[in-house]
């Protein structure tokens, strides 16, 4: 599908800060180096630890395909998050098709890298959020996109995105942060 990537261009029209106009002509390696970690964080928060690698890989493969045609001055991170959003939806749909319906939330598989770490705590809190809340929280609080851009990606208005993110954060405070408040307070000091 040689043209599949082209449809991913021009979605994000916002222009980055001055002086980054030729950022799109950088070697793609630089793009991976600079934005890979944030996109992985976003993928992990939106689709969870197991599907995150696939979502990340699909995102960067798709981005690399379209990269030579990315207009100069594009906000590369917003562009990547836009692609990641679509790949994450694909992963979530595929996961839902694979899942066997049960009455309870299935146990999160024990983390491959950090057993008992964020996979079992943070992700089990995140996965209980409605999809739009989880996306809004990730795109705004992890990727740093303004709500106007979050709205462009997930649909709806900036106000709705702000509300979804705010509701998501409130829910996470209740389900995740509160039992761990001692640790959280330390993180807050930074």
């Amino acid at each position, binding site marked *: 599908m040689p043209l599949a990537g082209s449809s991913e261009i021009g979605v994000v029209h916002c222009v980055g800060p001055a002086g980054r106009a030729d950022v799109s002509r950088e070697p793609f390696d630089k793009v991976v180096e600079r934005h890979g970690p944030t996109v992985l964080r976003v993928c992990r928060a939106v689709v969870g630890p197991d599907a995150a690698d696939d979502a*990340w*890989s699909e995102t960067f493969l798709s981005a690399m395909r379209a990269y030579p045609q990315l207009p100069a001055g594009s906000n590369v991170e917003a562009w990547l998050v836009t692609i990641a959003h679509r790949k994450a939806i694909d992963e979530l749909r595929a996961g839902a098709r694979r899942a066997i319906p049960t009455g309870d939330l299935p146990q999160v598989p024990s983390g491959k890298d950090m057993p008992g770490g964020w996979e079992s705590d943070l992700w089990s809190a995140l996965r209980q959020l409605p999809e739009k809340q989880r996306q809004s929280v990730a795109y705004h*609080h992890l990727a740093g996109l303004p709500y106007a851009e979050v709205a462009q990606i997930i649909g709806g208005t900036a106000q709705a995105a702000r509300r979804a993110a705010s509701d998501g954060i409130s829910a996470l405070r209740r389900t995740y942060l509160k039992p761990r408040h001692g640790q*959280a307070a330390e993180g807050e000091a930074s």
Partner: protein
Amino acid sequence: MTTTSDAPDARALFAALPEVDADAQRRLHARLAVAASDAGILDVAYTTLDTPVGPLLVAATDRGLVRVAYAGEGHARVLAQLADSVSPRVLRAPARLAAVVRQMEEYFAGRRTAFDLPLDLRLSSGFRRTVLGHLPEIAYGTTASYAALAALAGSPKAVRAVGTACATNPLPVVVPCHRVVRSDGTIGRYIGGSDAKKALLTLEGAA
């Protein structure tokens, strides 16, 4: 990376989710390099290797080796030039350079006298490219003067242009511009510096 005045505790919320997971980045980068290569969109693959003349960057297109660069040229700058002149789809992908690296290692160990690699000479054109085409005729362990090379390239008067062709050789070491020396016997200039030129000629037993 963002100020989130609307939720000051958001940082703490996601503190457990690593900002940079170096192991995951390495794993995913390697996976991307394979997938991009399989998809035919890895336009420029590169890697670096340590040699007696310092770290060398080697880059290849699907046609062959396209660039060898000394550290003095600035590897980041060379990659930026490749992004501009060949394609911005550039990734560190050592698999495509495996044969290049192996032959380089053999050469620097004194176990190889000629490179047998597909070359992509697209970064050189016209007379410069003609000159590069004649460089492999200067045998391992020997040298030729700029004037002799000009004659070999069919333009005996173009000595200066031959110098330029050597100075802009995109594939030093592999295309042996280091074997071209001045008529008075002095070593002459070199893209990797005259110390590197001396080292290569010494390795080959020509100096």
